[in-house]
Every structure is written in structure tokens, then in C-alpha cells.
């Protein structure tokens, strides 16, 4: 499975796509298939401020519950409202329709230490 190379990754299966100072985040297709049928997605309220390393969301499936972490500090500017009624979007298309949260990062620095698409792919094979 090849992952999009227009973003960075964490070994814990989150992806981060940067546009200016806005970071869009979600979980990878690999993580979604490990979880299997996702039943509920917990995303924060717009306006919440997080520190680097905080849990920003939870993804629940029939099988297990997984947490999502942010590597950057910042304020939540948008969340994917569609996931409330369609948590399965993450299973269907984890990299696009299944995006979860957008944060305006205080400092993009921490993203440099994240894995590239190639490095993440290597970690899951």
C-alpha cells in the first residue's frame, strides 16, 4: 500500500498535511483497516487550543478505540463534521474524505522530525 507523499507521518499512524500554517490531520488507511469498521469519531470543538503531544481525537471501531495525537501546538480551526454521521468515511478514504481536524499551528517546527511517506511505508511493511 503506498501512502500519499504530500504529507508527513507519525509511527502511530497519523498523517499531517501542511498548507501555510494550517495543518490537516487524520489517520492512515493502514490504521483504519487495523481498526476495521469505525463506529464513532471524537473530534474537538473549533477554538480548542492544544499543546504538542496532546490527544486531539478518538476513533472507535467495533474492535478497538484509538487515540490521535498532535505533534504541534495550535488552535483547532475546522473539524470534519461529516464524520459524526459517517464515521465510515475514514475506512473508505482515510487520506481525503476521512480527514479529521485542522489546526492553525503555533510553530511548524516539530513537523520536520516526522516520517516521510517512504519512511512511514517502511515502518508498516
Amino acid at each position, binding site marked *: 500500500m503506498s501512502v500519499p507523499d504530500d504529507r508527513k507521518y507519525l509511527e502511530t499512524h497519523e498523517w499531517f498535511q501542511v498548507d501555510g500554517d494550517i495543518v490537516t490531520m487524520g489517520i492512515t488507511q493502514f490504521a483504519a*483497516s487495523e481498526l*476495521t*469498521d469505525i*463506529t*464513532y469519531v471524537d473530534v474537538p470543538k473549533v477554538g480548542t487550543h492544544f499543546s504538542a503531544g496532546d490527544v486531539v481525537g478518538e476513533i*472507535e*471501531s*467495533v*474492535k478497538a*478505540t484509538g487515540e490521535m495525537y498532535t505533534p504541534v501546538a495550535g488552535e483547532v480551526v475546522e473539524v470534519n463534521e461529516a464524520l459524526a454521521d459517517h*464515521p465510515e468515511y475514514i475506512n473508505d478514504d482515510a487520506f481525503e474524505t476521512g480527514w479529521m481536524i485542522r489546526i492553525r499551528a503555533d510553530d511548524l517546527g516539530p513537523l520536520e522530525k516526522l516520517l516521510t511517506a517512504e519512511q512511514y511505508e517502511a515502518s508498516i511493511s
Partner: protein
Amino acid sequence: MPDSLLKTPLHDAHVAFGARMVAFAGWSMPVVYTGIVEEHNHTRNVCSVFDVSHMGRLRIEGDDAEPFLNRICTRNLAGAEVGRSYYSHVCREDGGVLDDVIVSRYEDHWLMVCNASNRAKIVAWLRWQGQGRDIDLTDVTTSTAMIAVQGPRAMTLAAEIVPVDLSALKRYRFIAVEFLGMQFSIFRSGYTGEDGLEVVCPAGAARMLLPKLVGAKDEPHPEIRFAGLGARDTLRIEAAMPLYGHELTEEVDSLTSGQGWCVDLSKDFIGVETMRKLKEAGLRRKMTGLELDGKRIARQHHKVCAGRSVVGEVTSGTMSPTLGKSIAMAYVEPDRATEGTALEIDLGGKRCGARVVKLPFYKRSK
């Protein structure tokens, strides 16, 4: 996948059918093929095949076999009928459940099927308790296979495959037949809440039987599909069937577990004294069904609360594919466990409302 994991006789078939394999109780097992919910629904609506070869299969024989089994099992096995299977617990002196098992009576021997995770423990327990008795114990797990065929279409489809009349086979009965030159035991039982069969046969026989059940990857059977451990769990939770390690542990006794129907307190078995005392004193916890508000799922160890008090603990939970509701099994204080009682579950920080409902959550229509 580490080389030290055991493989069932059907391992290659799972991989060929695209299963995701996981390590489970020392075995490489299929957790999902196409999707847990899809496999779950197919079992409820049509027919699924589960490889359950990882479960322990122990052959017991000898002159003392019946009294020996009657002493280690909670169930009354005295005068057990040939061709019948009995669900039972095996307990410690203090009533703690060592395992839940199914014991089947053949003409000249018994078969005990136990959980994969408890096989070593149960073998050791049987050997120790069997000292000085005329019994022989053989662990036949790795030389045999066990396949479950479950769903409303299971009996009809099996009748097309198995050249034996199954119409007279009642629930929890079994027949031993010879087919393709090999011995098969066909049990009318299962762990899904649907009708169906569980077949025990030599390892090689399973590989010959399998294509008749699921077909091949590029030419699958039109109705029968593989299902994995993920769906097995959601199915058994809906049917409120206990899983060792969750509802059953050495810290709980058979009466509290809600399986008191398989306990005969009038006979002598290991653990009976404790259970008689427990029954007289009154059970302090009750196995209870909960339906949660919303879509969050309760997991094992989540606390059940009434206001500021903790009144119980969740043992299993999932989003029920059949009911479309979040359901959980929990041990709850008896006076908070009456149907309709409103409680809360602490989902690790967040509270969720829940209501006590009758078990099982799902019952198949007859």
C-alpha cells in the same frame, strides 16, 4: 508473524482468502477477511465458516472417566448420554472459574473442548486431579481441526455437503460419521447465537472439507463465506455468551457469571462448597446487559456508575451490528441491575448514559 506461532490446518486457506492474521493464544488466526460488520451480518443472514481449530480438544477415557469428569465439572455428567454435549465450567476450590468447556460423550471416550488460551492450564489441571485414577488424557488439538458453520442457512447447506442425514440432529447433540475415509464428529452447537454446526475431524480431512464449504478464492461458494475472530466476538456479545478472560476469570464464580444453569449444587465437584455458601449469602454481583446512549463503545474494565458510586464494571462491549446500538455486558450490584435502571458508564474520563436491558441482546427467531 513470528515462526513460533502455531498454525491451524486451514492457515493457508485464510491467507489465500485475504485474511488479516493475528497472534491469538499462541496461534496465527484470522481476525477479519472483508470486514467485521460484513462478516457478522452474513452470519446472521446467511452462513459463515469459522476456523476454531485453535481451541483445545482433549480426549479422556478409562474406567474412572465419568466420575472424574463429574468431579471437575460443575455440570452433572453422571449418566451422560452418548451423542450429547454438555456446557460446563471447571473451577477451583474457591469457586474461581478455570475455564468454560463443552464435554461430549462418545461410546468409549469423552471429548472436552476448552479455550485455546487455557489449554495448557486445563491439561495440567486434569493431569493433576486425575492422579491415581484410571483415566487416560490425550491432547488431540494439533492433530485435529474444528470448523464452525453458522447461520440460518447452515443446516440446509450442510445437508447438501455432508452425506449424512442431519435432520434428526438436535441442539447440543452430535454424530460421529465416516466420510472420505475419515472420522468426523458433527455437533449441532455454536458460539454465535445462530443455528449451525461445529465439525471436528483430522487435520488433513479439514483441508479436504474446506473447499466444499467456502469454495476457492476465485470461485467462492455462492452463500458460505469465511468469518474471522473479530466477527466471532461481536456475534457472541450480541448473544450474551461469555468469553473467558472477560466474563469468566479465576476471580469470578460460575453462579455470579450468570451461568448457574450449568452448575449442579446437589453433587460433589471441586468448588461446590464455596458456591453453596455464595448462593446462601446472596450473590454480590450480577451479569447484566447494558444499552448505551449514543455511539460510544464501552470496553472491558470501564466502571459502571450510579451517581458518584461505582456499582459495577464492564466485561465486554461493542457496537452491535444487528441492533445498531452500543451494548455492553457488565457485573453490576444486584439491586442496580433490574431491567430499565438508568446508569452511567465511565468511558475513561467521559460519562455515558446506559440502561439495563434483558440478556441476550439478540435472539434468533426460531
